[in-house]
């Protein structure tokens, strides 16, 4: 076939079609709008939200949003989370024997439904947490509240007085911190919720997609996987926030978040990578905000696996972790080296230096292994989930381990799979994180060290110590004693001693305390946060 000649007719039609589309593509659009002056706009990965029921939520994202929409009895001081300040409770008295706290509540506060918020609502809200028995119930059950006694122990005396009785003289600060942090004292509209109860679920299903409470903001829109809008609550009893809206857009990709932030389409980006943060740090328009969370990334060692039952082996493994090197590279923006089981910022925590005495020391590790009877090393699997820094940390440790004869087999998996394996004690070791809910050494000690019953049947899956099959009668006694010590200075010293001891022969290898990091545009003022809360109501423009 001959090659045809190109004539004008032949080309006209397709060219016309192409140019129409080309025009559509090429027409410059009006520059994008900056964020509204009355709104706080955030890009954040909010995939994890699955419910708004304060009794059930455990995810970081929902936690933060609920704290800004549902006031609890008390709140943390933004600048020092170990201090508790009034919120729905304006003040409180503690009985001499420390076994009763009487809360005096706000008067005349009303829910969006128009119902008045009373002490009865607070009591009901706390009862329902215990009765529903989700993860958050532990906050109350570990201080002696049970399904049977909770209605007697937490009672409304009148509309504005709530009495909380305790079975033991626990440190008052600890109790206040616990109810401030864990949403267990979020004040819910009992009447409205009970009107929508299904099959005795205390409104759990109803609260899957909405909130029924009082806070500086209220949830007006939630499109799962898309965005959230909060609006300032006009009837709020407290001070009205400066910004009338909080808009959160679900953006999963960190690179996209960065673009939105640098272009000024969002005021805050919450999931930036270390590379992005390093670049953004140079920008004059953006500030990198950091806050240490009460969360530790740790090498979870299953003591039921023969080599790990030996404290010398566990200690040897700590000498394989390159705290300094990883801290300056992989974890530069993500975490601070921390080998103690108590997080920095908590009451009773060892200081930064004393809390992290390790460095890579292969000879020392080898010597410890020899003493433990593992001169030729051993083989062990390390499971980890989707945390972005798990893999590089695991690989770094794997490399060092190979030099002392330990063969680490790394296995990455989905979080739901990892959690299931760990809860079932089906692992040799994992790298994962654990977050406590109180700025007090007891928060970590009560779970990472204390183990009420090590038997498989006990299924104490909420205790990392149980998951790791680690049990020490002596350590249990020390955790108990420190909790009940009335003398604050003495109590602090007891936690210091326990940490020193655990650094040497504790059950786990603690590695890093995790930072919350955000890129914040300078137009936004007053971004305030600590490891326990973000205070949207303090922001302005």
């Amino acid at each position, binding site marked *: 076939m001959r090659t*045809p000649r190109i004539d004008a007719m032949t080309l006209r039609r397709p060219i016309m079609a192409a140019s129409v589309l080309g025009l559509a593509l090429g027409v410059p659009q009006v*520059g994008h*709008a900056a964020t509204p002056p009355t709104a706080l706009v955030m890009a954040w990965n909010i995939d994890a939200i*699955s419910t708004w029921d304060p009794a059930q939520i455990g995810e970081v994202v929902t936690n933060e949003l609920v704290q800004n929409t549902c006031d609890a009895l008390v709140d943390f001081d933004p600048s020092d989370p170990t201090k508790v300040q009034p919120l729905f409770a304006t003040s409180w008295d503690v009985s001499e024997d420390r076994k009763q706290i009487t809360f005096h509540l706000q008067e005349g506060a009303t829910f969006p439904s128009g119902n008045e918020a009373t002490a009865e609502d607070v009591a009901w809200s706390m009862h329902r947490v215990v009765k529903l028995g989700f993860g958050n119930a532990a906050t109350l059950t570990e201080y002696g509240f049970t399904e049977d006694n909770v209605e007697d122990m937490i009672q409304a005396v009148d509309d504005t007085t709530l009495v909380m009785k305790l079975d033991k003289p626990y440190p008052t600060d600890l109790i206040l911190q616990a109810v401030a942090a864990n949403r267990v004292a979020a004040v819910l509209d009992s009447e409205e919720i009970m009107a929508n109860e299904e099959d005795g679920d205390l409104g759990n299903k109803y609260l899957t997609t909405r909130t029924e409470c009082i806070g500086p903001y209220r949830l007006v829109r939630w499109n799962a996987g898309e965005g959230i*809008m909060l609006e300032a609550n006009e009837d709020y009893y407290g001070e009205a926030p400066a910004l009338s809206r909080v808009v959160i*857009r679900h953006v999963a*990709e960190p690179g996209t978040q960065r673009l939105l932030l640098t272009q000024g389409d969002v005021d805050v980006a919450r999931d930036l990578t270390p590379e992005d943060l390093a670049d953004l740090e140079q920008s004059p328009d953006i500030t990198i905000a950091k806050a240490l969370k009460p969360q530790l990334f740790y090498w979870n060692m299953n003591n039921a696996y023969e080599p790990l039952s030996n404290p010398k082996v566990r200690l040897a493994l700590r000498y394989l972790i390159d705290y300094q090197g990883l801290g300056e590279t992989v974890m530069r923006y993500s975490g601070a080296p921390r080998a103690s089981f108590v997080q920095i910022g908590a009451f009773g925590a060892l200081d930064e230096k004393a809390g992290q005495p390790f460095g890579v020391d292969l000879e020392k590790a080898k010597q410890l292994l020899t003493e433990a009877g593992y001169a030729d090393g051993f083989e062990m699997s390390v499971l980890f989930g989707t945390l972005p820094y798990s893999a590089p940390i695991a690989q770094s440790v794997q490399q060092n381990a190979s030099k002392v004869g330990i063969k680490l087999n790394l296995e990455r*998996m989905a979080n*739901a799979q990892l959690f299931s394996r760990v809860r079932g004690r089906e692992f040799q070791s994992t790298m994962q994180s654990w977050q406590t809910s109180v700025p007090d050494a007891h928060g970590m000690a009560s779970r990472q060290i204390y183990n009420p019953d090590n038997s498989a049947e006990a299924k104490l899956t*909420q205790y990392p110590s149980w998951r790791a099959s680690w049990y020490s009668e002596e350590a249990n006694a020390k955790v108990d004693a420190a909790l009940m010590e009335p003398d604050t200075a003495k109590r602090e010293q007891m936690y210091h001693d326990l940490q020193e001891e655990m650094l040497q022969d504790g059950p786990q290898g603690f590695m890093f305390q995790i930072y919350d990091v955000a890129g914040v545009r300078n137009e936004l003022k007053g971004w305030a946060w600590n490891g326990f809360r973000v205070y949207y109501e303090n922001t302005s423009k």
Partner: protein
Amino acid sequence: MGRTALRTLVSVAATLFGLAALTFLIGRLLPLDPVTAILGDNASQEAYDAMYRQLGLDQPILVQFGMYLRDLVTFDFGMALTTGRPVLSDIARVFPATLELATVAIVMGTSLGIPLGVLAAMYRNTVIDHTVRIVGLLGYSAPNFWLGLMGLVLFYATLEWVGGPGRIDFVYEWDIEPGTGFLLLDSAVQGKWEAFGNVFSHIILPASILAFGALAYISRMTRSFMIEQLGQEYVIAARVKGLSWARTVWIHAFRNIAVQVLTVVALAYAFLLEGAVLTETVFAWPGFGRYLTNALLVGDMNAVVGCTLLVGVIFVSLNLICDVLYRVFDPRTR
């Protein structure tokens, strides 16, 4: 004709059943624990056991399969663990976003891809053909993820020609009343032209990137169909009769490949609908692809099953439509 229709119906039903069975099996074989996915790793054992029973996981596998089929027949895909809402309503919410994006992309890809493919066939081994081939190669091989980010950096961040990630700017976000879920349509119907412009500026870049891939596929297939036609005797006959080259190709030869091209377009469309996962992630596009990916990552099997079945239905229906069109337009296949 009646028998053919029945046969088709049976085969469609069998395909869907097979798909449902396979999805169920995969859901059960995957080492993902739906209970931890719902309750998190910190829930008490009592809460865990209660949820385990509530999900029917304590039942024998056959009973579970039976319950699953019963629910499917009534279009009950269960609740999505990640959103706490029925899977069907989740899909109804995210699908329009994908449908809108894919439709714009397929319109662009088709209206450029077909002419380019025909031109490449007409001017085989010339500069035009080579150019089309290079464009096609790029469309095939450049990852959408990368193209998306580069596109954003160039057109959004540097030139500021287009809107950024997301379907619409925050300021307009709550202005459009929820309607069909197609923001272009909704904003136009409500007469909110500023918002319409904003939606358009957001969709044009991701749609172009998806269109690029579709264009590569469509133009390549069109080219090869056309080359085959141009070798046929009737083309030579038409030329001998004095018909212009352009008319021969665009009217006569093109008519003969139209049905084949349509199949290609339908397939390309189905792939786009299935979820341009990475593109949706880069552009923070709240669509079906991203919903499915997230469901997979967290082990939300109800959502995964629902989405997989929907994708199956899309493919089966598009195939069915093509089949029917073949019969209508091409007498040889009857």
